[in-house]
């Protein structure tokens, strides 16, 4: 993985001292609330319902075991013993003290981490595929480009006060595990007819109250032009995005209002007149330098000779179920990627305790070359596990509530923190997640239902990505009560599409039973092996709506 050099290290350390001084000036009354707000947000610090919330950046979801131990220490020393993995693959702490945040940032800087630009109207953490570098179908590993974007976007002097926040996702091949089409910019590594590698560029995707799927603004961008083209898009957005209404300030609104062709022409004019072939043009040396940090790891090629796994799978049904659901193919024979489920039965989705973080760090050292990935579905991944080690690893994970064999099923939910923590939320989410977990606690039932993406947001800002789930749940406030609107048929994958609203919102107590009704329509109507998503696409929403809102006799 990427290792800081002197410049990177100097930057994060000086940034800590800068923020320490800003916090001091704020507490001394020298800096207004409003001024400090913008500054603290750009260091990941929110003031939430009960306490500040600090969001720490995990660039493109990749961490070392050393970094994970530091995150555990922060949870223990400065928070209440846990953290929460977010859909931007970051980690957030819900109970830090404002005056201690500079110290937390100093702790992070010791392990090449920071909270820079995890909030605010600036370029946020760039995300990618959690199986980058280990997925056989990718054209190239996207992480070197993510690192190039990380550096370019970090403390960018021109793009720190954009009309609104700005999110970029990069995928390495035809599969999309990064929800790239609902990002402000989605970059897809592609190969052109001449066999050269470059990017398909999408703009104007996004969720929130006005969701859009991103539109292609350029079919093929040669890779050396990556930064100059991003620079052109950002400048056009910075100068033309709406600033009169924060709900209309995202680039998706600008692209929709202008049309992607007209927007693309502005970008092209900006790019051709200045950036193209200019200083931001990536050199081969720089691309190779970035790639040098993500070379294939030191794999043990004899791992393929293992024969123990098959026997263990045959003998242990629970292990087998976990293997089927929570491990993924690796491009190197003899290895698997392991998803560490942060969706146990009665814990908020994505939460992880300090002890679990320490444990995962140790396990990654022992079994996965010391690296850990975080996913936008709010799980962790140990990407480099020998097949012969899976059984031993599973036993430890299982003993520590990290091996619920539910990855990809209904209870592997994406879920925002909701009203329990978030100052923006209209409704609670964690209690609904618990209700769904209790109702669908039988794993065999979940396996029968198959792959189902369930995403839940506690308000229209859609941090839980409810629009792009097979089943989306949106919490709404009706006269002081929590109600839940259900959507069906969304996707954040390569076939990205927005879900359709099932009908009027249901009461809090009825969410799980409504899902039961929806799923019974699926089970009764599915063809052999047909997934929930495919059944919804084939049938449309009508039969589901009919059953859910059938008059009660």
């Amino acid at each position: 993985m990427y290792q800081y050099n002197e410049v990177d290290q100097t930057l994060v350390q000086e940034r800590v001292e800068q923020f320490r001084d800003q916090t001091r000036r704020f507490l001394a009354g020298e800096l207004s609330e409003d001024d400090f707000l913008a500054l603290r947000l750009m260091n990941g610090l929110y003031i939430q319902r009960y306490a500040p919330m600090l969001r720490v950046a995990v660039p493109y979801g990749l961490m070392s075991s050393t970094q994970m131990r530091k995150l555990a220490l922060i949870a223990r020393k400065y928070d209440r013993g846990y953290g929460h993995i977010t859909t931007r693959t970051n980690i957030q702490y819900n109970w830090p003290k404002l005056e201690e945040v500079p110290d937390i940032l100093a702790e992070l800087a010791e392990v090449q981490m920071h909270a820079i630009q995890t909030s605010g109207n600036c370029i946020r953490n760039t995300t990618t595929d959690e199986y980058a570098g280990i997925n056989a179908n990718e054209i190239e590993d996207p992480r070197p480009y993510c690192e190039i974007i990380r550096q370019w976007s970090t403390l960018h002097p021109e793009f720190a006060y954009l009309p609104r926040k700005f999110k970029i996702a990069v995928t390495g091949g035809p599969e999309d595990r990064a929800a790239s089409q609902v990002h402000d910019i989605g970059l897809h590594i592609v190969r052109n007819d001449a066999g050269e590698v470059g990017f398909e560029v999408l703009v104007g995707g996004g969720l929130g109250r006005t969701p859009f799927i991103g539109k292609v603004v350029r079919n093929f961008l040669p890779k050396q032009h990556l930064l100059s083209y991003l620079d052109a898009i950002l400048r056009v957005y910075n100068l033309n995005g709406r600033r009169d209404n924060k709900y209309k300030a995202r680039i998706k609104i600008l692209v929709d209002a202008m049309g992607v062709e007209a927007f693309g022409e502005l970008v092209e004019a900006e790019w051709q007149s200045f950036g193209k072939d200019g200083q931001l043009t990536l050199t081969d040396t720089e691309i190779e330098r970035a790639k040098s940090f993500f070379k294939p790891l030191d794999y043990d090629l004899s791992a393929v000779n293992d024969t123990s796994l098959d026997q263990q799978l045959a003998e242990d049904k629970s292990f087998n179920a976990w293997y089927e659901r929570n491990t993924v193919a690796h491009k190197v024979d003899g290895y698997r990627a392991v998803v560490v489920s942060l969706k146990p039965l009665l814990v908020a989705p994505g939460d992880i305790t300090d002890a679990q973080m320490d444990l995962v760090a140790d396990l990654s050292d022992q079994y996965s070359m010391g690296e850990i990935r975080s996913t936008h579905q709010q799980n962790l991944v140990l990407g480099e596990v020998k097949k012969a080690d899976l059984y031993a690893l599973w036993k430890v994970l299982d003993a520590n509530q990290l091996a619920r064999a539910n990855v990809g099923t209904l209870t592997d939910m994406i879920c925002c923190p909701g009203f329990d923590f978030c100052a923006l939320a209209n409704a609670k989410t964690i209690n609904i997640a618990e209700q769904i977990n209790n109702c669908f606690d039988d794993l065999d039932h979940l396996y029968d239902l198959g792959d189902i993406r369930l995403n839940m947001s506690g308000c229209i800002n859609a941090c839980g990505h409810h629009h792009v789930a097979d089943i989306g749940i949106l919490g709404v406030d009706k006269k002081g009560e929590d109600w839940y609107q259900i959507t069906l048929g969304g996707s954040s994958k390569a076939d990205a599409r927005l879900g359709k609203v099932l009908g009027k919102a249901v009461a809090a107590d009825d969410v799980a039973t409504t899902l039961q009704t929806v799923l019974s329509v699926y089970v009764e109507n599915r063809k052999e092996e047909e997934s929930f998503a495919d059944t919804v696409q084939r049938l449309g929403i009508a039969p589901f709506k009919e059953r859910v809102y059938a008059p009660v006799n």
Partner: protein
Amino acid sequence: MPLLINREVVQNDPWQFVTAEAIEAGEPLPVGSVAVPLAYFVEHKANLLARSGEVGVTVNGGDDLQALIASLADVSLVAVEFPVFRDGRGFSIARKVVRAGFKGEVRAVGDVGRDRLEYMESCGFNAFEVNGESFSDDTLKAFTEISVNYQGTAADPRPIFRR
């Protein structure tokens, strides 16, 4: 309203700023160096250039930036307005002005606070009318809080990988 030029406090500002309201009210232009709104400059360019004294323009995010770029050869000051600090269009305006080859004064006016000075300078501003209430000697430290950058600056536009 302390004025900083090239990181130094300047006591006497040679520029007189003429607002659109003053022009509409029919007030005559003062003698000496004047900065006028871009739209007024475009309309009265010949008369303005015939005066003795230098001419500058004030611009904001709503102005026609092509007209600004076309005017740069005739002005020696571009003052970019920040109506509120959150309005970051001024950063991009400065970038465009500098990269067009403008060598004069690029001044940030309006809601200009200490904690944005370094970014502003990187984008090409060399003069700042800093909010009075927040100005102190400590303000000058803002320019050197972060000693490294990835992107390049107006002074050295090379991104880190070209240095």
